[in-house]
């Protein structure tokens, strides 16, 4: 079986490659760039060219839809990138299958161009022991994309008792996280980080001093004051970022700060990096695409944690993406059911879906305005998270597993939640007209999204 992605712009930041060429995939692995097709193809496929005014640009088979085992995909005008990695996804399974399942999250990932997703441990039961880690990984084996999991820092995410970190790592967890349930005790966090450092896994932290955010709904500032909503002060995030940085310095643990949202958090991380402390961080497309003004209509889909901030924070995040202070882009994909969101704003669940809007938001708000190059943006969604998590992914190197994302950087898309593969419809980007789209997603040499799946 082979697949030749011909005449695309191959961008592989892991090796500094950005050139037009052919990428050959044989038996699920990358054979190399500009290798000739091993024989006559049984099918040739060309993507429909994106036309202004036509919202969708989807790869459609030109010939038969039968099994294609020797296939050429014409990637002229398209970008061929390593499969995107989203290191911050709420799979919701086990426990909240009314919001999302591992299978549907994987389908949403494939549709959005992601070939690897990392689940967070705030499920029910929590992913805090070997059995649940194995459950998620086993279910994930049947999913359309690579499903990885983190393990909880503390038992039941209660912040009181350390979880069996060693056993979870042995079972296949690639990171430890306190996402959604930030460990409040500095002493407990110190022990978790000291202990995790034995296994050389990163600890992914949600930074929030909960004593400052009881019942908080949105960013503290003039918009919260006008709307009369309980404010979530920016200092609650930065305080915890600083604490965790100091604990990383103390323990030598690899620290990764999740969903950075404030200018001050960025300054703290920049300081830590300059000092040589092992810290990395991510932000999400929502934090460089929207401000807290998105709440002005009391839209529950714009209620997220940490909350949307200000114009100045958006600018600081863009600058930090450009100068490399922010290592990775991750979505914090947080699907919820309609009944979790069709309620009074104060009672609505936190979170928005992200897998299927990430690529267009990155291209529209970062690449097109020149904040970062396309290559830099792809790096933050491929090689950067792969290195943070020490996983073999995010590269088009010869012999690597063939996880590939084909992107049309000029496609015009209109966000329509009703068309999402995710069970979650909670997006504040409904109706947004954006540029750029993942038009096909290849996992281990198999096309899992892009109009080619049928008949595979």
């Amino acid at each position, binding site marked *: 079986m082979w697949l030749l992605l011909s005449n695309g712009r191959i961008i592989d930041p892991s090796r500094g490659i950005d050139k037009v060429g052919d990428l050959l995939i044989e038996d699920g692995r990358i054979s190399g760039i500009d290798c000739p097709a091993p024989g006559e193809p049984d099918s040739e496929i060309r993507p429909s060219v994106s036309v202004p005014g036509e919202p969708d640009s989807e790869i459609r088979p030109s010939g038969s839809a039968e099994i294609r085992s020797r296939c050429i995909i014409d990637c002229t005008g398209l970008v061929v990138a390593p499969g995107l990695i989203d290191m911050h996804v709420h799979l919701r399974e086990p426990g909240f299958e009314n919001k999302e399942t591992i299978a549907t999250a994987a389908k949403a990932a494939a549709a959005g161009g992601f070939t690897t997703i990392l689940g967070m441990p705030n499920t029910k039961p929590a992913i805090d022991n070997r059995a649940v880690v194995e459950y998620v990984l086993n279910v994930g084996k049947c999913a359309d994309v690579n499903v990885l999991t983190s393990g909880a820092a503390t038992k039941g995410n209660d912040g009181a008792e350390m979880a069996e970190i060693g056993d979870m790592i042995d079972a296949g967890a690639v990171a430890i996280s306190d996402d959604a349930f930030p460990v409040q005790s500095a002493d407990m966090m110190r022990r978790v980080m000291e202990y995790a450092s034995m296994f050389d896994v990163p600890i992914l932290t949600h930074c929030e001093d909960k004593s400052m955010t009881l019942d908080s709904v949105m960013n503290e500032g*003039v918009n919260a*004051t*006008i709307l*009369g*909503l309980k404010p979530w002060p920016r200092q609650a995030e930065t305080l915890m970022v600083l604490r965790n940085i100091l604990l990383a310095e103390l323990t030598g643990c690899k620290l990764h700060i999740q969903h950075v949202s404030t200018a001050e958090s960025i300054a703290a991380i920049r300081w830590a990096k300059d000092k040589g402390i092992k810290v990395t961080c991510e932000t999400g497309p929502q934090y460089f695409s929207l401000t807290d003004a998105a709440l002005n209509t009391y839209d529950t889909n714009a209620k997220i944690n940490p909350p949307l901030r200000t114009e100045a924070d958006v600018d600081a995040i863009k600058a930090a993406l450009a100068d490399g202070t922010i290592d990775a882009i991750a979505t914090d994909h947080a699907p919820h059911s309609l009944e979790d969101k069709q309620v*009074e704003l*104060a009672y609505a669940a936190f979170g928005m879906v992200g897998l299927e809007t990430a690529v267009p938001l990155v291209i529209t708000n970062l690449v097109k305005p020149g904040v970062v190059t396309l290559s830099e943006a792809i790096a933050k969604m491929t090689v950067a998270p792969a290195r943070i998590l020490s996983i073999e992914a995010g590269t088009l190197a010869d012999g690597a597993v063939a996880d590939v994302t084909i992107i049309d950087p000029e496609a015009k898309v209109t966000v329509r939640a009703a068309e999402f593969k995710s069970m979650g419809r909670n997006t504040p980007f409904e109706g947004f007209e954006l540029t750029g789209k993942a038009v096909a997603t290849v996992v281990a040499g198999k096309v899992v999204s892009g109009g080619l799946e049928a008949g595979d």
Partner: protein
Amino acid sequence: MQLQRKDILGLQEMTPEEMRLILDTAISHKEILSRPVKKVPILRGKSVCTLFYENSTRTRTSFELAAKIMSADTTSISVAGSAINKGESFKDTLLTLEAMGIDLFVIRHGASGSPHFAARTVKAHVINAGDGMHEHPTQGLLDMLTILENKERFDGLKVVIVGDIMHSRVARSNIWGLSKMGADVRVCGPSTLLPAEIEKLPVTVFTDLGAALDGADVVNVLRIQLERMDRGFFPSVREYARLFGISKDRLRGCKPDVLVMHPGPMNRGIEISPEVADGEFAVITDQVTNGLAVRMALLYLLLGGGGNVAAA
């Protein structure tokens, strides 16, 4: 002139012309209240529902009386506490009541933005009777009517709002309404009870009551919620009364014809001294009467105006 809107959610989005229309209509409706037979048939056959998720005596009674004077049928629903963890969702409650033919909902809710949610959910009209810390537009309008009756203008008036600005929907509606009509709005309270970036609203901010009251035409005294003390917003009732309580002595720096208002219910001896509450400058009971007039005016403009094009 007609009111071109389906709902009354706040004064922030209202134009001075709309507020002027409502106040003029209220003045003409107030006459009905002095008649021996307080009943007009304008809203006969219309159904008004007061849906209250928070306790209230005066606002609810005021809306119900207003509707009854106008001959509308009224239904009142009280939901103890929030329905979030028990019983029916807010959305289902609204849809159920609308299916029974409610033409207008009067909604009070502890969560800011709930009337906006309701307005999107039902085709019926929605009047916000106070939502969380957001707005209380009918209180804002009745305060404005009271000021207008006594001062005959808004332009250039120095209006001081004193107390817990952070948690007050009355403060926010007063700020928007009065500033749009040209008044010079001042807010004064403990720094812990001034919300973030309040200075970005059309107000001047004070923590020194003496400075705030200097030359004031109107003082609007807010109720202090005693439970705020337990949450660490101020140390004691005694200290609050000393620093921010409105006493006769405190009023000396104001204009000689200063107007003292309070949305009620009052904590006598804490935010307002009994001498002031019952004194010559207080118009607190006039506010209550004007509340009835304002609510009659809004019901008329939304339901009975004959040509409200925004009507469902």
